[in-house]
């Protein structure tokens, strides 16, 4: 490829991503050190000329505030906890599905895979909304259980943490199945046969051959579920009720309800730091896939 | 054909190619004349593919020059070179029909449509693929794909045709047949051809001249029989066919014949003509297995013989290969043609005399 052509092919997406992906984070970082004020925009400048003297107003108050008010710590913790257990739930349902699909013959495989993906092509919001109708007090589950007389009065399902777990597993299940499937389908059958030939029973072959070889898929799938779940807003908002604390919801409220942009920025920065390890983990896997 | 014509069609002048610290091709010079079929033969990583890619323009030499028909093309990109390549995977465009594949190169030259059609028709006829013109590549068998790939690379009437492992994607049975068919087509067109292969049989069947590459260098260039009968190095001798090599010390250098001694043999080793080494120098003496005779009785000649025990026999139908262990421990291979069905053949642990003529041995200096 000609030098100029090659450079412009690199430059266009590069500049776009720098401008609209990297620079925004720097600005969030900057504003997390600003102070809220009632103006447009609703934050103070970090660098100002006050009486022709350059002053830097670095305000770590937002971060202090996050530590001081236990609400934030609780929200971070419960976000990570909920995301973690939901990821495990998705893995427990997703792995056997991916395994079963990978073992089907080629035609069935494609059809099954399409069936896994189909729900995620419909609206996320609507799929979560579907669960409201199922879980609420006069929803399908409670009505059904009451009509066959197992319970006398509705059990609280909606606006509980359980509902959030269901929502996350439901919404993110395809993202767990897909990478594991991609990994398992590449697995050479002769490895399994070799293991059987060497005297290893099927369950042991699964544990010592299949599972370790699908590690990359498990990691990718888990990260694809875990990371966005930590910052999830729609699911806790619609299914979790006021009781369920999740950091995405806190950030949203800080921003839209309290209009405190600097604190929202600080919340975002801390969330990013929290997710840095899993994101690098994911990135290492993904860039291997992309560059291989 | 082995004599280089006055003005070569393709000339490689002191070409070196480095990838970082690694030199894939080291100071290679070659001259290939018009109409020749030339093979670059070597194992994987010997630099043959890099050399081919420099001829086609996908790599540029770090040093040296590549001339096509007298013109330096070292810096000319592949799409401006009058060189076409048949790729190992054939690289047929999957979204185009056979016809469109063959026409692709001609369309790039913006030839009038009628001319392109005529040319495509001629090419398809040449490779016997006329009736498959409207098919897509995935509807063809391996051999058919190869023919289309050949037609496509010949359509532009290139000055040099490059073949990258031409039989690499075919199964073994089809190879022999396609090798000869390919040569027929190439010779009927009269195009100069350079092929890369790791398969010595393929190189020797198809090419007029063969060059052996090893670690980025050309070890030897010659006709297939020259390379086989007169290898100039241990590597070449061992790479082409099988060979017995005796480590030997030069005893006496004469004009008619010369004598050497080897720790593996009790008798003197005698070779034809002189040796380009001083007395006392260490060299190798190579003898091909089919040039060694076997006998139960002691041969009459005083030199070039050995007594051993049959250690192993490989019966290959047409001929058998005997592995004979000498008292020194060295195992020597000898082949016999199985002419008589009822012959009383030598068997395991039999004592056997081996002998060969002075003109069968080749001195290897490196």
């Amino acid at each position: 490829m000609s030098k100029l052509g090659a450079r412009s092919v690199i430059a266009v997406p590069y500049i776009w991503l720098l401008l609209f992906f990297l620079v925004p984070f720097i600005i969030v970082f900057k504003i997390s050190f600003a102070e809220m004020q009632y103006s447009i925009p609703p934050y103070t400048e970090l660098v100002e000329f006050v009486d022709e003297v350059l002053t830097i107003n670095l305000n770590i108050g937002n971060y202090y505030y996050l530590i001081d008010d236990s609400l934030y710590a609780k929200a971070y913790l419960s976000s990570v906890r909920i995301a973690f257990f939901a990821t495990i739930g998705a893995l427990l349902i997703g792995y056997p599905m991916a395994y079963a699909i990978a073992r089907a013959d080629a035609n069935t495989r494609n059809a099954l895979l399409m069936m896994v993906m189909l729900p995620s092509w419909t609206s996320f919001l609507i799929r979560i909304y579907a669960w409201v109708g199922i879980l609420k007090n006069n929803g399908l589950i409670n009505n059904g259980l009451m009509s066959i007389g197992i319970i006398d009065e509705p059990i609280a399902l909606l606006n509980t943490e359980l509902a959030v777990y269901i929502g996350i597993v439901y919404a993110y299940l395809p993202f767990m199945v897909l990478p594991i499937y991609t990994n398992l389908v590449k697995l050479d059958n002769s490895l399994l046969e070799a293991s059987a030939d060497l005297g290893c029973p099927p369950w042991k072959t699964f544990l010592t051959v299949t599972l370790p070889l699908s590690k990359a898929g498990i990691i990718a799938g888990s990260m694809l579920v875990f990371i966005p779940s930590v910052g999830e807003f729609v699911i806790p908002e619609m299914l979790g009720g006021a009781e369920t604390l999740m950091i995405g919801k806190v950030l949203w409220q800080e921003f839209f309800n309290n209009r405190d942009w600097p604190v929202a920025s600080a919340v975002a920065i801390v969330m990013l730091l929290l997710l840095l390890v899993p994101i690098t983990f994911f990135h290492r896997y993904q860039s291997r896939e992309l560059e291989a | 054909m082995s004599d280089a014509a006055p003005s070569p069609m393709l000339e490689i002048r002191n070409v070196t190619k480095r990838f970082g610290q690694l030199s894939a091709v080291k100071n290679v010079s070659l001259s290939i004349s018009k109409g020749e079929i030339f093979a670059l033969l070597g194992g994987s990583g010997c630099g043959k593919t890099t050399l081919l890619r420099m001829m086609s323009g996908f790599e540029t030499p770090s040093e040296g020059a590549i001339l096509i028909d007298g013109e330096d093309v070292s810096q000319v990109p592949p799409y401006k070179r009058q060189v076409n390549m048949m790729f190992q995977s054939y690289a047929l465009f999957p979204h185009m029909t056979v016809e469109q594949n063959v026409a692709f190169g001609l369309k790039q030259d913006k030839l009038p449509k009628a001319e392109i059609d005529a040319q495509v028709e001629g090419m398809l006829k040449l490779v016997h693929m006329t009736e498959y013109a409207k098919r897509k590549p995935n509807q063809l068998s391996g051999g058919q794909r190869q023919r289309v790939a050949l037609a496509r690379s010949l359509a532009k009437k290139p000055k040099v045709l490059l073949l990258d492992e031409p039989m690499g994607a075919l199964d073994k049975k089809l190879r022999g047949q396609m090798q000869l068919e390919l040569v027929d087509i190439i010779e009927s067109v009269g195009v100069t051809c350079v092929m890369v292969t790791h398969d010595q049989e393929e190189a020797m069947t198809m090419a007029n001249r063969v060059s052996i590459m090893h670690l980025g260098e050309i070890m030897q260039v010659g006709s297939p029989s020259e390379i086989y009968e007169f290898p100039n190095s241990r590597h070449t001798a061992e790479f082409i066919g099988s060979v017995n090599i005796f480590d030997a010390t030069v005893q006496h250098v004469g004009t008619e014949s010369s004598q050497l001694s080897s720790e593996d043999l009790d008798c003197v080793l005698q070779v034809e003509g002189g040796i380009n080494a001083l007395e006392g120098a260490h060299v190798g003496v190579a003898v091909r297995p089919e040039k060694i005779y076997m006998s139960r009785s002691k041969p009459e000649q005083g030199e070039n013989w050995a007594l051993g025990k049959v250690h192993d026999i490989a019966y290959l139908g047409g001929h058998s290969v005997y592995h004979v262990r000498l008292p020194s421990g060295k195992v020597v291979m000898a082949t016999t043609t199985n002419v008589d069905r009822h012959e009383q053949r030598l068997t395991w642990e039999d004592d056997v005399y081996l002998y060969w003529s002075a003109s069968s041995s080749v001195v290897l200096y490196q």
Partner: protein
Amino acid sequence: MQTGKLSTWSKSFLSVGFFFLYAPILILVIFSFNKSDLVTVWAGFSFKWYGELFRDPQMLGAAWISLKIAVLAASAAVVLGTMASIVMVRMGDFKGKTAFTSMITAPLVMPEVITGLSLLLLFVAMGQSLGWPGERGMLTIWIAHVTFCTAFVAVVITSRLQELDDSIEEAAQDLGAPPWKVFFLVTLPIIAPALMSGWLLAFTLSLDDLVIASFVSGPGSTTLPMAVFSSVRMGISPQINALATLVILAATIAVFIAWWFAQRSLKSTTVVGDD
């Protein structure tokens, strides 16, 4: 992996999984035809909620805005994503490649609230210092969607490009086509199905996005998910079920078309073994 008939275990895993995935959707669809105002009590078949949906100017307006943004964002994301894939698969190493791949992969998992907030703050800062964008609306939503959709498109196209034999592109060059022509005559037609599915993916992602759009939208640019969200916050409405059914129908048709294309191209573009 071993292929063949599914075992009983496999079948039961799949049944449970698919029941979990499809039951809520099915329920949603069924109750969209319910006569009753109550979403969960069946009172007879009716199309009344579809009628109400099509008489709701707010919903229709929001849907129109969302469609426009989705088409434009998907198209731009396919262009950028294709360029990014070529950079990653075909360009070899260059300075800053690691940073480049990070910026491609990170948006795949970035929590939406962070992406939304950061882009909004960028637009505000740019508006302050450059005077552009003057106000937030469709343009800013478009930029935001292009950015995160590019990552998804790049993943889809990259995996297709990796499967593509380099020598096919080299053969085109060898036959006299300069690089730009190779791209348009050979590479692009071969990866077209991937571009198609990349476009569809980006289109749905854009159509589906609530959080990021909420951050970067302005007055007068309410997207469909934003309208739906504010409506369901008020409480459950069968009208949303009707909308959901239409969305599911559209998605199913789109996926089948995409699948059909993929199958067809699979038949005609992959070089299969000897026959």
